[in-house]
């Protein structure tokens, strides 16, 4: 764990001791006080429409404070109910019944019920819909209201992860019949109700008095999120005490923050990863031996050290990360090995290889440097990488998935199936390596409907192994989420690693120290 100060270590050590002895919750959080955070990822185009959310500011404001979803991923990665109390599936994982919480009210007083769930999900459908959650909701063939507090979903194909998908930050629950008004004003069932919202500038919300989460969450009296997209300005705001917490620390100035005794740095390794995907249906990448040669031609540790400045974890060409349930940490680590790379080149019938790698810092910060490091390390194996720097504008439309080999990133997904279905399934729109592997594809389909956890683990381990051995994506590193908090604010020992800022739920989980 990086960035833990001595003070922090003593604190956490002591706290862990207490926990071990008593088994009691770590702390009795103080209620009240104000929490101010300076967050990046804000835009003048922001709104309370969760279908359009894509960056931290709105995710933290909407799902993190004002709105609720059916389910929620806890800080330790487990799934728990939010607006749903419990759920059960038929043995084929095709029909899911959700029991909803009763006695929940929206901020305008309307009672929450089954209709709200159904209508909120239907928002994502329709030909015109640009919702990022459309593929998730489209898989539902029928939504049935069994009673005010029970909804039944029938899926086109079995999906054991369905409750996980319902925790997506795009799928917030709005009041039925007044969704437009709710989007305009921000009316949800969350812990905080909107006081002021100025897109791209700030969001202020106050604690709802009688909330169904009671005193177990939402400890602040008032929260204010200030949009600060500029790195330096964000850091200044924290250093001068104008805000209590900021996301995305600039690694270059991290030492300054560490030197400040009033602050602490939180660092978690999640699923966010940086990749070099190649189109596996285009020569020479269609030859598995070429792909293997490239896997041995990259120095992953050097990438972590130089591109992430140590704030990350070496990747093993599988997108399943430590924030996933079935993360296979025991696979043999791919290392830089010029002899092996040469051997596989030989297997492909080549003595040397000349290829183009298209990069831009739009893919991830440091992608251009990464390409050059790759070029240097692969040269020893007779692989000549020609690094082409592409313009940042239009990178995702003109380069990614168009050029045979490029740089890219994924923020990762909460479940294995979700990640694979997004970027590693045959026919998926973002399958950025045009990956088509019949055996793995059938494993993916089987695992999706498998409710037996042990069996699933085996299936996902095998899929990760296949990607490591044969996949068309070079995944050299997982990038950490690094954020800083003022010591005025206390945060739980376990910080969520699915998203920045404790899964964007700091308003719910943190409190005044």
């Amino acid at each position: 764990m990086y960035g833990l100060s001595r003070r922090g270590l003593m604190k956490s050590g002591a706290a862990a001791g207490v926990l071990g002895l008593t088994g009691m919750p770590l702390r009795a959080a103080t209620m009240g006080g104000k929490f101010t955070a300076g967050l990046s990822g804000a835009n003048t185009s922001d709104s309370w429409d969760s279908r359009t959310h894509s960056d931290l500011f709105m995710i933290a404001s909407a799902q993190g404070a004002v709105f609720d979803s059916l389910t929620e991923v806890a800080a330790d990665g487990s799934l728990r109910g939010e607006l749903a109390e419990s759920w059960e599936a038929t043995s084929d994982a095709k029909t899911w019944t959700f029991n909803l919480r009763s006695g929940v009210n929206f901020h305008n007083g309307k009672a929450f019920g089954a209709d709200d769930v159904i209508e909120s999900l239907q928002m994502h459908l329709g030909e015109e819909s640009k919702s990022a959650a459309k593929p998730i909701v489209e898989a539902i063939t029928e939504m049935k209201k069994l009673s005010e507090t029970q909804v039944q979903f029938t899926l086109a194909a079995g999906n054991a992860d369905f409750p996980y998908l319902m925790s997506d930050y795009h799928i917030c629950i709005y009041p039925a019949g007044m969704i437009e008004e709710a989007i305009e004003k921000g009316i949800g069932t969350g812990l905080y109700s909107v006081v002021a919202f100025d897109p791209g500038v700030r969001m202020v919300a106050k604690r709802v008095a009688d909330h169904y989460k009671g005193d177990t969450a939402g400890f602040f009296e008032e929260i204010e999120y200030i949009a600060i997209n500029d790195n330096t300005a964000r850091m200044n705001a924290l250093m001068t005490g104008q805000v209590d917490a900021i996301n995305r620390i600039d690694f270059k100035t991290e030492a300054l923050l560490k030197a400040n005794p009033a602050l602490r740095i939180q660092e978690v390794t999640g699923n966010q990863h940086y990749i070099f995907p190649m189109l596996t249906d285009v020569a020479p990448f269609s030859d598995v031996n070429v792909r293997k040669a490239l896997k041995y031609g990259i120095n992953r540790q050097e990438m972590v050290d130089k591109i992430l400045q140590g704030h990350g974890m070496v990747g093993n060409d599988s997108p399943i990360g430590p924030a996933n349930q079935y993360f296979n940490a025991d696979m043999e680590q791919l290392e830089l090995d010029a002899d092996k790379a040469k051997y596989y080149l030989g297997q492909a019938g080549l003595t040397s290889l000349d290829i183009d790698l298209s990069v831009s810092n739009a893919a991830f910060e440091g992608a251009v440097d990464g390409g050059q490091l790759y070029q240097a390390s692969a040269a020893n194996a007779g692989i000549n990488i020609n690094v082409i720097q592409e313009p940042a504008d239009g990178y995702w439309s003109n380069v990614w998935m168009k050029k045979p080999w490029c740089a890219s990133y994924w923020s990762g997904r909460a479940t294995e199936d979700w990640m694979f279905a997004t970027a590693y399934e045959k026919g998926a729109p973002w399958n950025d390596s045009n990956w088509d592997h019949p055996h793995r594809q059938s494993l993916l389909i089987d695992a999706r409907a498998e409710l037996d956890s042990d069996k699933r683990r085996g299936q996902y381990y095998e899929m990760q192994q296949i990607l490591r051995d044969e996949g068309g994506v070079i995944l050299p590193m997982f990038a950490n989420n690094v954020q800083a908090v003022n010591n005025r604010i206390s945060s739980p020992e376990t910080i969520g690693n699915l998203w920045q800022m404790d899964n964007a739920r700091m308003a719910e989980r943190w409190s005044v120290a």
Partner: protein
Amino acid sequence: MGNVLTIVLQRLAFGLITLLIVSMVIFIAVNLLPGDFAELILGQGATPEAVASIRHDLGLDQSLVTRYFGWLGGMLTGNLGTSFAQLNFQTNLGGGGGVTVAEQIAPRFANTMFLASVTAMIAVPIAVTLGILAALYRNTVFDRATNILTLSSISSPEFFMAYILILFLSVLNPILPSLSNIYDGMAFGERLEKTLLPALTLTLVVTAHMMRMTRAAIINLLASPYIEMARLKGMSPMRVIVKHALPNALAPIINVIALNLAYLVTGVVVVEVVFVYPGIGQLFVDSVKIRDIPVVQACCLIFAAAYILLNLTADILSTLSNPRLRHPK
């Protein structure tokens, strides 16, 4: 006075033509930028269908000429249009009213004007006073020191001055807040306090120009026979400058002040970003980032109009300050 009115009308007409040309240049330049709103808003998630759907909704699939005249027509009827970002959400919602560009810009513009006024209130008196004093004590240590200080502050980039001020006034000596997140309904005193750091930064940037011009204009006049006469009458040097030299030096000084005021409206982009000041500059940066053309164009036009109007004001004021121009033979 008829003469002045003609000048004003003439200049206004020229101003309108300039605005028209500027609008064309802006439109072409913004459209030359690689990437468009649809691609940028969708980012990595841009599938060809989604891009085409957004482009169609926003009319981005029409020709450049059609779009330009559509926009110009709206402009002339006082309709600045609706920002792409807002339009995009409307189609997502299936109709319903959105926030127009005018509504979006108005509060931001008010904030920028507030910042500009606070800065002008500080900078103009300081600059003119320093200029007069520098002229009075020319070639002394005071004159040299003022020149060096103001010239070095104008030569450094704004963000550098901003960080220097943050370092001294909010990190080392926490007197002023480094974050200028003002909002509607904030008490005036608090608003002023939050605006002070960016205003001081801008003051440092604009003072040198005005101060140097004041000094030069006055020194220039000090060699004239009527000043010699005043001096021979036995007037104090201060009185000679303020009473006799300054009124005749006003025209160039007013010109420079007007130019700098225009700069305060249009050149605040960097300062607003550094201090997270929710003015028009930050809106401009955000909109350029997502290629929200209606907002970018509206901002540019406001900037251009500010320049033209302030220059016009400067011309009129310097005409009025000159009796020879005021009463032509």
